[in-house]
């Protein structure tokens, strides 16, 4: 009787576990090995995997290079910070297809940089991915900076280190786990992005080392969607299964 509260909480919580876990279980259990094997040897799937890992990697890199400084400034605090914060968090709440349309308005034809072609290009895809994934890099890194006791930075400064040296010797080493987490989150978010990429760059050309030249492919979630529309659930399921398996392996390697 005394644990009725825990029993009730566990019961309600289990419903959610079923809603999240059961589909995943059935997704794995209902795969048809023949189709999975066929897709695993399909060169289009290989290109998709290469692009689906490489593109998000570039987006995560951009998110970190430009996001770490911003995260540091957020943790320090500055005038007008709230406005800048809202702007950074905006991509989190913008519908994904709308994010793509916003990017086309900004950098597409008639936009800010007329000489840069984003529609259907690699640059456009990286831009779309960075747009939706940068907030994750900024927020995780910022949290890492904020969790460092101010007094450690005070101690560094008062005993002779400049801001640069304090960042290099104290702040960055203590925040490095948070920075890596931010990079991984941004990468995962870019991998999963469908809407913005589908609008900005449904198919892109890129240099593919195994082919020794340019090839055309789609970002993985777009490719899965296209397979679903053309080939149905079983085929797209097999592609999705391969994609998730590869992602899981990469995730374990990073850990």
């Amino acid at each position: 009787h005394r644990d009725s509260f825990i029993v009730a909480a566990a019961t309600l919580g289990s419903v959610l576990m079923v809603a999240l876990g059961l589909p995943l279980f059935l997704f794995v259990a209902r795969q048809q090995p023949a189709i999975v094997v066929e897709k695993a040897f399909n060169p289009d799937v290989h290109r998709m995997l290469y692009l689906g890992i490489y593109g998000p990697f570039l987006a995560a890199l951009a998110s970190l290079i430009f996001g770490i400084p911003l995260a540091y400034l957020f943790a320090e605090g500055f005038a007008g910070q709230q406005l800048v914060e809202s702007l950074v968090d905006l991509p989190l709440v913008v519908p994904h297809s709308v994010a793509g349309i916003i990017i086309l308005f900004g950098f597409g034809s008639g936009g800010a940089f007329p000489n840069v072609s984003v529609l259907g290009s690699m640059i456009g895809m990286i831009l779309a991915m960075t747009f939706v994934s940068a907030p994750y890099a900024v927020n995780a890194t910022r949290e890492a900076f904020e969790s460092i006791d101010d007094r450690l930075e005070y101690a560094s400064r008062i005993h002779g280190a400049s801001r640069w040296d304090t960042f290099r010797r104290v702040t960055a080493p203590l925040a490095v786990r948070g920075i890596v987490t931010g990079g991984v989150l941004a990468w995962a978010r870019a991998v999963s992005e469908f809407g913005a990429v589908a609008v900005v760059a449904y198919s892109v050309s890129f240099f593919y080392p195994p082919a020794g030249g340019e090839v055309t492919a789609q970002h993985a979630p777009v490719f899965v969607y296209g397979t679903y529309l053309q080939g149905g659930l079983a085929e797209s399921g097999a592609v999705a299964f391969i994609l998730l398996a590869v992602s899981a392996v990469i995730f374990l390697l990073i850990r």
Partner: protein
Amino acid sequence: MSFHADVSATFDADGAEPFHVDAAFEVERGESLVILGPSGSGKTLLLETVAGFHSHDGLVTLDGQRVSGTPPEKRDFGFVFQDYALFPHMTVRENVAFGRKYHDDIRDPDTLLDELGVGGLTNRYPPTLSGGEQQRVALARALAVRPEVMLLDEPLAALDVPTRQALRDDLADVLSDVTAVYVTHNRTTARALADRIAVMNDGQVVQVGTPEDVFERPDSPLVARFTGSNVVDLDDAPSIREAVDSGGGVVAIRPESITLGDDGDVRGTVERIVREDATNRVTVAVDETTVEVFTDRPLAVGDGVWLTVPDDVHVCRTHAATSA
């Protein structure tokens, strides 16, 4: 040399009222100034502001040179924090040698750690050390850069009693050689370490003087109470007024200056007996008030006793609780 600080700053905490620190002090070469005040009086904020961690109005000078415009790393201070603030990702030796890149003439970390009794810990990481050990390392880190001024923020507050006493003894040695500003709310520590004491309350310095000045001749009842004196409004204690032959007002009487004996000037009743390290602290009801005295006599609650009060008792200049 003299070190002079006169700063004014306002601090906004989320949701709370802004807190103003507006205080000035001066320290001579080799002198230790202790800033003594209750929790929340702004002692730490004052020290951190002087160190350059917070922006402020006013002036901080060292040997007549203005340092208040320069960043902390150019001020040539050492700082010891209440919670140690050791770099957790560096060994003890690396912590102490941290300032080597920025100071030509750093003291040898191993020698310094030996002197402070933690020579065996050089290759350990701070999180694996006890509080007392961490604070000795933090002290070594600050001393290593041979700072012109040492700033110490309640370095003993987080330690338990025996550790605190041992480190206080060592701090007394260290501070005898350096120019230091030391913040504490503990009056025994203040008296043990101070050449001069500045009493702080509500963001302001309310009295500065030698330990004897502050403990024996407090300006206000607030200072008297915080330094451990009995604060007696003579209107509430006619028998004490008669004994000290004073017109009236609020007087500060140190408990150790009152003797409890078989006869005396003032009659009272024992209300409470607390055994302290050296002796008993006894609370005696006298007229409408109570006074504390120290005695080794065997007493029980309810006993009638005679007290002898010194007749050159100190009258507080002001009655106001917080005014300077």
